[in-house]
């Protein structure tokens, strides 16, 4: 399973829907995730990828799309 697939699976769990956003599509502007789903998604990403997201990195922009999430995870490895 690629990073993209693993991220997509987490987004689907957070959204509670089988969504299929494009890599650069905004998860917020498209209505896939609301603000309250974000903390759950970040917690799941931390667990799935064995990374720690410090509060200073907890900004909507870093988690806005699959591409941005993938880039952030890569930067934390």
């Amino acid at each position, binding site marked *: 399973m690629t990073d993209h697939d693993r991220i997509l699976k987490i987004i689907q769990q957070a959204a509670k829907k089988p969504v299929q956003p494009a890599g650069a599509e905004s998860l917020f502007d498209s209505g896939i995730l609301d603000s309250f789903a*974000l903390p759950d998604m970040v917690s799941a990403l931390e667990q799935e990828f064995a990374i720690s997201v410090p*509060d200073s990195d907890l900004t*909507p922009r870093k988690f806005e799309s699959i591409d941005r999430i993938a880039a952030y995870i890569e930067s934390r490895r």
Partner: protein
Amino acid sequence: MSFLSFFGKYLPERVVSNAELASRIGCEPGWIQEVSGISERRWATPEQTVADLAVAAGEDCLRNAGIPASSLAMVFVASGTAGRRFPGPAAEVAERLGAAGKPALDFPMASAGSLFALALAAKLAANGPILVIGAEKMSSIVDKEPMERETAILFGDGAGAVLVTSAPGQLQVVDSALYSDGSFRDDLTLDAAGKFRMNGRSVIMQASRKIPRAISELLERNGSAAGEVAAFLMHQANQNLINKVASTLAVPSEKFFSNIARYGNTSSASMLIAAAEWSAAAAAAPCAGNILVFAAFGAGFHWGALLARAV
């Protein structure tokens, strides 16, 4: 040793319904309820000031306590919506209550101000009773044309108060944990010209993580767990945020006292209004030893929690 002995509150008479707001901002009333859990809020009259609201809540608290304002050692007033840069409302409030000459401190902090004032008062109450008031006129920010949809739905006006004493009272303050981090200072601001800005996503992300963490750390260092807490008295920011914090702590959201449906988000006033209403409801059946947790999060960011035990 300090105690939260008596509470008080004041809510303006005017009720602003979702239907009234919806017609002004162009949305369905049900949408406001869905995204915030708010059904209605109170707005002060244009003539009422933050000090007016604070005095009314302070008088209610002193009436409940049965003591004159002259016996106060200090007066603390938390507000992010005071009408003037200086002086803040504390000196006026103290004077109008009958405590002129006593030190009166302003806490110009939105949302978390009353928690910070409360925690500081608990450290100083050995010198005499301290009246802590949170008072906000949030309508002065949102009742403008054009009204901003995302913020207009959230806020209400009101004031809450608590008398902090060294003499035994209703709740004993056990411990507190306060935090500040200016990294996100631009995400929730009211500038000198009165322009309000909120990065709602950032606020929710940070609050959703920081509030449960502060509560958990405070409970852990005092040998308690979230499941043992009888009631959480949290800043009434948004019902969805309250539910989120409850979920993160793995406790039923019913343990979080909530009046946001009736009053909206009254910023620094909300936690003490909630405490006053919880106290009035709990007075019929006090349970000695019950653990209570106060918590708040606000612009700055400032956040934290305070642990108390029913006497």
